[in-house]
């Protein structure tokens, strides 16, 4: 009788632990959702990518312009130094 009671209690205990383990990730996702959706559908994805690409192109263009400006300023600075230096 004691043995069967022990066996039953063990079974109940293992079942409870299994249920808790099964629901733990679900509760974590519910409390701190990392993937709550909604899923972006293709049409929205394309437009988001287009927007991102346009921004990236703009940044690249600005970078090129800045580089060109730096090169020009360096040349001007060197030229001025050359003019100023006594030969």
């Amino acid at each position, binding site marked *: 009788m004691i043995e069967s009671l022990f066996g039953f209690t063990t079974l109940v205990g293992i079942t409870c632990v299994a249920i808790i383990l099964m629901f733990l990730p*679900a509760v974590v*996702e519910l409390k701190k959702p990392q*993937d709550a*959706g*909604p*899923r972006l*559908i293709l049409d929205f994805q394309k437009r988001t990518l*287009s927007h991102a690409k346009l921004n990236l192109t703009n940044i690249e263009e600005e970078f090129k312009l800045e580089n060109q400006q730096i090169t020009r300023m360096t040349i001007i600075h060197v030229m001025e130094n050359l003019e100023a230096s006594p030969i």
Partner: protein
Amino acid sequence: MINEILESTFIAFTLIISLYLIRHFIFTFIVLRNVRTRPFSKQNVNYEPTVSILIPAHNEEFVISKILEKMARLSYDKEKIEIIIIDDASSDETGNIAEEYAKLYNFMKVLHRDALTGGKGKAAALNAGLGSSTGEIVLCFDADYLPSSDIVTKIVRKFEDPNVGAVQGRPVVLNEPQNILTRLIALERIGGYRIDQEARDILGLVPQFGGTVGGFRRTIVECLGGFDESMLTEDTDLTFQISLAGYKIRYAGDAECYEEAVHTWKAYWRQRHRWAKGHMQVCFKHAFKVLTSKKLKLRQKIDGLLLLHIYFLPVLILLSFILGAWLIIAGSPIVSALWFTIPLSLYSFIGNYAPFFEIGIGAYLDGRKRTQWLMPFLIFSFFYNTLICSKAFFDLAAGRLIGNKQGDWGKTEHLGSGNRYIPFLGAMEAYD
């Protein structure tokens, strides 16, 4: 004697449940195998039939303007499209809002139905719209849906095959983050569309036309007599009518559209009760015809019958569980030998029509990272669905006894709760 009958019944129930489990595993493996090898069908730019889009609307003032905005931005040739908003006896501003859009866009028109002629359900509203449509292909959208701009192209291109009678697209839950219920519904939709419908299309079975985000060939449906207004699920009824007439139904998984899912358990009950009762009506109407049809292949008959009976499944599982427990207590030797069927039954029991495997793989293919962690909560929605399906069955049986064939339509209320989750609508407007 009684024990033998109960044992035979238990074995039969277990075999049927196992059949559904095997079906879901087959579906999942088929979709996984075809992920990379099956591209979406290419567009033939010369195939651009005329299209009529029906939007039945009964008191949809919170959502109607959103869908009409989307309709105005469809990429399909506007010369070949007409949009018919069926204002079905609305008592709010739905009709007025629709009229404002009809004034702005000449390809939109409004069909007003008053309280005498209208308000008799979606099937009646669609029949009215069908009667005034002129397009070769007719698409249907519920008023709370937000389609992608190229959805018409993606659905219509499947009709290039003259044997295709209907095409179904894919709804995506917009208000998924709203609460636990909407997140569970999103999971159900993933299993149902990303795996179930996709697999049925790959295997040449019968994908279900869902009555929204989809369309049909107008001449076929007119020959069939339009939508059956006595059916609560006129879409499922049309699915089988078209299939039994020898036409194919295709699934366009890339034709995606946002939908607003119900967000209260009471609304969920009403919606699923109507689906279950309607589906059972369709089962009684078509099961024998599917079994004896000369136009359906064997695999289409098997899957068609499984689909028709799917809303009986939760009731069956509950009964088999109770029966199994009773037989164990009674010391039945058969149940002792078939103890492995208990876990099988339990596995389906907690799966809510589709095993966790189907939904999990569907979420993975969608690129989701953690939403599938919520799957254990589907146990509770399954218990709820068991009650819903049981009630639907008894309501249907009682209705037939007293001669009430249809019952209340029970329209789903849309309050626009999905609108706040429109992710990039602002960015989209900047590029239009």
